[in-house]
């Protein structure tokens, strides 16, 4: 696998969705190419930081308004 080919499938590799037939070539390339291996590591850490953003809490000040609207639509059950 070349660097370009490896980078093309890096997104899938990050997400754990790399096709099984590509895995050996990808792993081999990562083992022998420090720039690609570093890049993959950067992307993994970037993705983990992005996932972390999603863990932040956000309040919903209009929640009750919605539940009331739902009750009205469905006859107040």
């Amino acid at each position, binding site marked *: 696998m070349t660097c370009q080919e490896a980078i093309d499938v890096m997104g899938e590799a990050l997400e754990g969705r790399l096709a099984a037939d590509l895995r050996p070539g990808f792993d081999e390339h990562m083992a022998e190419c420090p720039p690609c291996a570093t890049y993959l590591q950067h992307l993994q*850490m970037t993705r983990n930081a992005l996932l972390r953003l999603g863990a932040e809490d956000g309040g*919903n000040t209009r929640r009750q308004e919605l539940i009331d609207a739902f009750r009205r639509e469905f006859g107040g*059950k």
Partner: protein
Amino acid sequence: MSDRTDLAFDSLLPRLRAGDDAAFAIVVDRLHRPLLALARTFTSSPALAEDIVQETWLGVIRGLRGFEGRSTLRTWIFSILVRRARTMAAHDARQSFVTPAATDGAAGSAEWTPGAGKIGLWTESPVPWALVDPASLFQSLEALEVVRHAVDQLPERQRQVLVLRDVEDVPAKDICNILELSETNLRVLLHRGRARVREALDRYLRGAPRGHAMMNGRSTSHSSRRTYVSGDKR
């Protein structure tokens, strides 16, 4: 927000259709934040983003009886949001004479164009981030702020796919349906978005003062750079 979440939501459908407000509250509580995150990619106005989400939920309430289950419940709800957001954000932009953000697509990649093989990919090799503990990156509010800012600066489409896939962990196939994208387009947009956020983190981490809490104190100068010319065959 995984495939398992979809199964859990879809099992709530009969209860929702029967008017069970506790079931509705579960769905609202689980989806409100990701919906708001997606709405914010369509507008810079926090108030308008809130309104988009509220209108989405009202659309869900009105549409539940007619929902045929051809997509998952979550995809259906996100798709309603995208339609509402496009209409409401466009209307708002006209009202305030704000030019909508570029919708990206072909905007140049920060670091590469997927599939367009070229020789000399690593003319400048990435330098390892000298972190004592990789987890420290996610515990640093400052680093997360860098990430958030980088996401906010992305072109609209890249921002949308990144928020859905990486921040909210929505499955790729659902994102294709929600944003009406091909898998190839999704891959390219994700590649570009992640590359830009990575670049921002790279600048931040390597520009951080020596002895910064997250760094191990080793020099992160350019000494470890090397020129690498890929023997690319494509």
